[in-house]
């Protein structure tokens, strides 16, 4: 465990423009063989640095079961991400530190029904778990994905969603906030669709949710209303982080370090934390 503050160099293998402001960067380590030692589980994050601009925290959006690369989906939001969008192209090199943080409770969700509730860029960490679960499909029972975005053009991973829709063992429900002419699927915010369209089975089901803070808040409310137990609701928190090592103190919520004890929490754990996320 030494010099974890110094990043490893990765090459951008592919850039996918998901939506007008979200790009997925497919990364490979520059040094051969590094990819084999870089093991991670769904839900963990990396520190992505565009050298000279700064460092940002992103969840890994792919699963380690898909070998040879990993993805980071980046939404243009702040200074560094704007720099990444404007200057980072295929073949460029970036620094990566990680993986950090905990992961989705893979043992706990084995043999359960799974319900994924994602909103906007919040599908990225879920995608990692979805890929993992698809690759280990035998371990899980029913499989539902509810994904909402503001508009149809704001939906990321369109190609992959199509794949999921074609997969008979998955149930995919899509929704957008406001009606559009060409949109044939559901319209409405995620919690509403969850209650009215998805109508999930409560028994033996784990819900994994991620999205903007406001969406998470209302989704959890409606999940509780539907009768889910706190321990069955799993979410990943967004928090400003810088070191990822439990030192810089930026991600403190109470005595919890989100970068070490999180970012994946069950609602049960969230309730015990002070309301500062």
């Amino acid at each position, binding site marked *: 465990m030494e010099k974890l503050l*110094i990043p490893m160099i990765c090459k951008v293998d592919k850039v996918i423009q998901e939506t007008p402001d979200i790009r997925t960067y497919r990364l490979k380590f520059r040094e051969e063989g590094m990819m084999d030692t870089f093991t991670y589980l769904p839900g963990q994050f990396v520190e992505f640095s565009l*050298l*000279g601009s*700064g460092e940002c925290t992103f969840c890994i959006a792919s699963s380690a079961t898909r070998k040879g690369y990993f993805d980071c989906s980046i939404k243009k*939001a702040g200074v560094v991400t704007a720099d990444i969008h404007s200057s980072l192209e295929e073949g460029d090199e970036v*620094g990566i530190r990680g993986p950090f943080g905990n992961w989705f409770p893979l043992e706990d969700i084995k043999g359960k029904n799974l319900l994924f509730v994602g909103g906007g860029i919040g599908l990225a960490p879920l995608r990692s778990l979805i890929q993992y679960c698809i690759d280990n499909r035998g371990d899980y029972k029913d499989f539902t994905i509810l994904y909402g975005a503001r508009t149809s053009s704001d939906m990321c991973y369109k190609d992959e969603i199509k794949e999921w829709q074609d997969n008979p063992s998955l149930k995919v429900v899509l929704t957008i906030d406001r009606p559009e002419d060409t949109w044939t699927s559901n319209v409405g915010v995620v919690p509403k669709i969850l209650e009215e369209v998805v109508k999930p089975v409560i028994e033996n089901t784990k819900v994994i949710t991620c999205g903007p803070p406001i969406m998470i808040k209302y989704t959890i409310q409606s999940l509780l209303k539907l009768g889910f137990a706190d321990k069955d609701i799993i979410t990943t928190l*967004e928090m400003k982080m810088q070191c990822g*090592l*439990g030192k810089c*103190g930026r991600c403190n919520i109470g005595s919890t370090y989100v970068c070490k004890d999180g970012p994946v929490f069950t609602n049960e754990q969230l309730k015990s934390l002070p309301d500062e996320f």
Partner: protein
Amino acid sequence: MSFSTFVTDKAGLQKFYEAIMASQETYAPVEKFGKFDFKRVSALAECDPESPIAKTMSIKPLFFPRTAKVMKFVATSAGTDVSEVDEDPLAVKRVILGVKHCDARSLQVLDKVYNWDYIDTDYQNRRQNTVIISTRCDKADTHCFCTSLDYDVENLDAMDILVVHGTDGKEYIKARTEKGNELLSSDVTRHASPVTEEITAPVLKSQYASFAASFRLKMNYKEVNEKLSKIFDTPEFENVSGNCVSCNTCAFVCPTCHCFKISDEKIKDTGVRYKSYDSCNNGYFTLMAGGHNPRPAKYRRWRQRAMHKFVYYKERFGENLCVGCGKCTISCPVNISIFEVVNQVSAAAMQE
């Protein structure tokens, strides 16, 4: 095992300091613009080991520098390269003079956070190579409250060598650790004579008694800690943080605040990544790129600061993060005292 103790007079203590400066790399409080900061010294005339506590910066920068290079990098269109920085100038064998007890204690507290999970090797090296000589204060300052907290100031073992100005006019130099004992067994103590525990103990005790009696601020730590941990949502935080100007000074002078930020600087193709201090009182501290800020209001940031010092760190690492040095209060432009804040809030909790 017992460590050696020496006794000498005022001049002998000076000679002891001089002998250390002659043989070791030494850091001591140096005055600049009326404020003492720990700097490299080579003669006793440059520094003042007895600097007043109210005007002395903490020794934290000698272990956790205000700005440290994390790495160097070259980023061109042809490729990117990162390299480690040159040798750490703070990791050499050294002695620090004139350290206050609260400062020495702060390192003990900081050890916990630097030694959990990922071990910060730079910090470890600096720590291992340093001998800390701490002088016990004779009198508490206006804002001191170290005796009220969760550690035993009298038998503090955070320093390697303890210097006490005895009530009998003599100076006592006492080793507290193996490292300190080793230094004292060299010829730096040639102007002092060894004494036994039986002789020193009563003198040290009476000195401590007069020191402990001089405190203006006293609190019931257990009660405050307990009360604070129970009240998160109290409007009292809004009241106590009312006149805070969010200037962040408290965190920068605090001997135990350890939050930092990472920033890159680049000229042409080469650049350096720095790690420098940051403060949770800064509105930007938790502001995320999307605009979401978990602590947007001043009272929330104050609550984080007070609770981290008195509750969270205790919960996590078993020590109180505040060491009671009062540096934040002295530096604060509007004299907000963390002592008053926690007491006021816990008193309000009592009423509820």
